[in-house]
């Protein structure tokens, strides 16, 4: 293991580690544009140059392997001059349109200029190279070639991570520009990662564009519920509205985040968001809706049933199990979901589109219940007349419900989720508005944390279940989500 000195501090690093990695280990930050830990080294931006004793020229920290006895300096006048020069080169043809650029506030050009340059421009405005502005290059991205610093992170991402190779550098010298290869669009499942990767405002998200300034955003660490992979994410929000989702890179699941996952937040403020109950096709206030649902359940007596959902948190599934066991006092409940688990595309997207299949199975282990097959059989046989479930889980029993004419009562966040033929729908708070525990395909227990507050009157599912129980004449005494978990070993 090579031992080297960086700015006077000694560090021992793994064989093959670069100077940049060694510095990182010591907590010494070396500025970089083209370097990215998950992409191949390009070594072309020349921002990370450092001084190595006995080396006549400065070397790029991103591409130089640490060797035993090396003496590295990152703060000498030579290094400072090199950084300042690179920044000047990058800025001469930059449009400096920060006031209208989405990247402003989280831009490496701005940040490094403040940290390492602060030089006055020596380049006449009229001599700046002009390039194509704001072109849509795919469903999610806008490209502004004038702001581009040609670090090629985007090119390497498409070549190495998605292996779709949509992008390349065209032309040469300062005529160079990033463009789509002929006949391609930037429409892979991970295109929005490029907006994150881009250190400047060249690639921006069409969705986030002009929504808010980066410095207003508050950040909540939470998880993605787009599939069973359960990526760690950060929800960025301002004035009680989520504006975008970015990955929280971690060793267990994800460096990146898929476009589908990034768009899941859209449901929170979608036009079809439910705040009231729906009986057949009519929207009615929550209280009468609950009363109506409670009376239909009571009417069915022991023929009422509860089906859990792999789209709901462990807590909300537990609340549903309490509804079956302690309020309806029925044997007719089911938390039996099996779905093939595993990464579908070799990157992140799971074969199982539901985020909590493993969590629902935990309820099965703790509370028992019917198999999905037996549950369906009982619906078909008319032994179950009313089913309470979550909207997307209703798909598991769709055909048999239709055939038998059983009443379907679903919890849904958005109108689009409501299955055809549902008798009643009750709203609940999404997991951007209320916490919940989920178990991903690897068995990792992860927590969704609320980023924003739900609309007035929209309550978490466990609270809706609690109310429903009260309307049915019992009390589950659920005061918080965790109350539902009592007696569940987990």
């Amino acid at each position, binding site marked *: 293991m090579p031992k080297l000195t960086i700015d006077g501090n000694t560090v021992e690093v793994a064989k093959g580690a670069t100077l940049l990695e060694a510095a990182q280990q010591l907590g010494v930050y070396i500025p970089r544009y083209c370097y990215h830990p998950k992409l191949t*080294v390009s070594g*072309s931006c020349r921002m990370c140059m450092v001084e190595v004793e006995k080396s006549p*020229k400065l070397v790029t920290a991103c591409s130089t392997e640490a060797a035993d006895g090396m003496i590295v300096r990152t703060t000498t006048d030579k290094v400072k001059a090199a950084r300042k020069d690179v920044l000047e080169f990058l800025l001469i*043809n930059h449009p400096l349109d920060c006031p209208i650029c989405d990247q402003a506030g989280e831009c490496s050009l701005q940040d490094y200029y403040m940290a390492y340059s602060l030089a006055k421009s020596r380049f006449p405005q009229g*001599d700046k190279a002009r390039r194509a502005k704001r072109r849509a290059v795919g469903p999610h991205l806008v490209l502004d070639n004038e702001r581009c610093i040609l670090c090629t992170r985007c090119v390497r991402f498409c070549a190495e991570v998605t292996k779709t190779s949509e992008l390349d550098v065209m032309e040469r*010298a300062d005529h160079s520009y990033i463009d789509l290869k002929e006949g391609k669009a930037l429409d892979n499942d991970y295109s929005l990662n490029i907006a994150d990767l881009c250190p400047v405002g060249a690639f921006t998200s069409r969705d986030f564009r002009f929504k808010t300034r980066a410095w207003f955003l508050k950040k909540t660490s939470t998880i993605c519920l787009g599939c069973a992979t359960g990526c760690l994410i950060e929800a960025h929000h301002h004035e009680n509205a989520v504006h975008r989702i970015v990955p929280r890179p971690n060793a267990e699941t994800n460096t990146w985040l898929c476009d589908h996952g990034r768009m899941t937040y859209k449901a929170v403020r979608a036009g079809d968001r439910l705040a009231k109950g729906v009986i057949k096709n009519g929207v009615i206030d929550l209280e009468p809706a609950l009363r109506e649902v409670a009376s239909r359940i009571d009417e069915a007596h022991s023929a009422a049933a509860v089906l859990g959902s792999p789209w709901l948190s462990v807590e909300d599934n537990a609340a549903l199990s309490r509804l079956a066991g302690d309020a309806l006092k029925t044997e007719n409940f089911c938390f039996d979901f099996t779905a093939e688990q595993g990464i579908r595309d070799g990157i992140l997207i799971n074969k199982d589109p539901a985020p909590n299949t493993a969590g629902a199975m935990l309820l099965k282990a703790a509370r028992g219940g019917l198999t999905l097959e037996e549950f369906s059989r009982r619906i078909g046989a008319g032994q179950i007349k009313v089913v309470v479930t979550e909207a997307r889980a209703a798909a598991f029993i769709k055909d048999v419900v239709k055939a038998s004419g059983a009443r379907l009562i679903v919890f849904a966040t958005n109108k689009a989720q409501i299955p055809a033929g549902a008798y009643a729908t009750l709203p609940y708070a999404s997991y951007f508005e209320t916490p919940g525990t989920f178990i991903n395909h690897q068995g990792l227990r992860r927590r969704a944390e609320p980023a924003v507050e739900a609309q007035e009157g929209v309550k978490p599912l466990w609270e809706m279940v609690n109310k429903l129980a009260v309307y049915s004449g019992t009390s589950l005494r659920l005061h918080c989500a965790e109350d539902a978990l009592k007696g569940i070993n987990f």
Partner: protein
Amino acid sequence: MANILLRDNVAGIEAYFAAGGYRPLKKALALKPAGIIEEVKKSGLRGRGGAGFPAGLKWSFIPKDAEGPRYLVCNADEGEPGTFKDRELIIKNPHALIEGMAIAGFAIGAAHGYIYIRGEFAAETALLEKAIASARAKGFIGRNILGSGFDFELFVHRGAGAYICGEETALLESLEGFKGQPRLKPPFPAVKGLFGSPTVINNVETLAAVPYIIEHGGDKYAAIGPARSSGTKLFCVSGAVNKPGVYELPLGTPLRDLIENNCGGMKAGKKLKAVIPGGSSTPVLTAAEALGVNLDYESLAAAGSMLGSGAVIVIDDGQCMVKLLQVLARFYHHESCGQCTPCREGCGWIEKLLNRLEDGRGTAGDIDTLCSVADAMTGRTICALADAMAMPVTSFVTKFRSEFEAHAAGRCCPPEAQGKY
């Protein structure tokens, strides 16, 4: 002394053979590869492409225990402005190159050689193809050469017009079918070169000198010229001399001799003003400096320039140095691959600054900016193209500052005024 490389009447294989050609190959095949490398090291032969790296040492960098194929690549992408020697060699003495490659291939254990030839050299490509075919017909190229059991196949690959593909790793990228952009080093080509295999890349002139070294021994070659600059070198002289052209001279020959004797002096009415001694990227010498320097690696380095590719560009007093530098800047701006920030942005900036000065829009401040931009490009990039732009800028401005100042003061040089300042 007699020419080693540029010989008359040896272009055809029969003539080459009659003059003793392909005897060195036979001799080499009877030696051990290590023995050949030792002989080349002894000869002191240095790379003739511009960098002057010792050829024998380069060959010895091929890892002994490397598995899989090794490659020999000849850099015939002669693109340095002012250089036209490899072309002449290919026309006049193609078999020296072919034979040199077969010997080098044997020495480094390569079964395949590639000649990456400049795309514009269409006629030369055809000549070379023909020469290779005739060598193959005689059994000097191909399987089991001269019954030695050594196989060596030779391919000619045409470039597509990029100056940067003369840089050896960009050449490899291009040869592999990618955009010609220099690679990060290390790994060096000797370890990971063409198709990821150990590779030696030599200039045409370097390889063409190998048969002589094998035939006459490294010591005899080393005896030509000064101690650390042994052998003969081709010099391509352009500019206002009476007889411009390619001359083969022992290294160490005074530049004054080349201009005054070989080239017959300056054209009538022209006075020597400056010389770029080793191709457009090498620092310019003033007339006084040029007339006192010898043409070898050390003397030129001591004079603050480089032997480079041996392209001697003679500048007379009718030329405007700002205009000349503008021409060079336009070239390097056009040819920068655009990979590294300082080169991509710097070459363009320098051209714009020179355009301002040349058009009469420049200021005295622009001259300082010119120098500081060149400084900021020097030694900061993956390959030497940025340095190749910076070196002429620095040397032109330092040595001919008054011309730049005159431009900044608004006195431009229309043709009739050229040479007045």
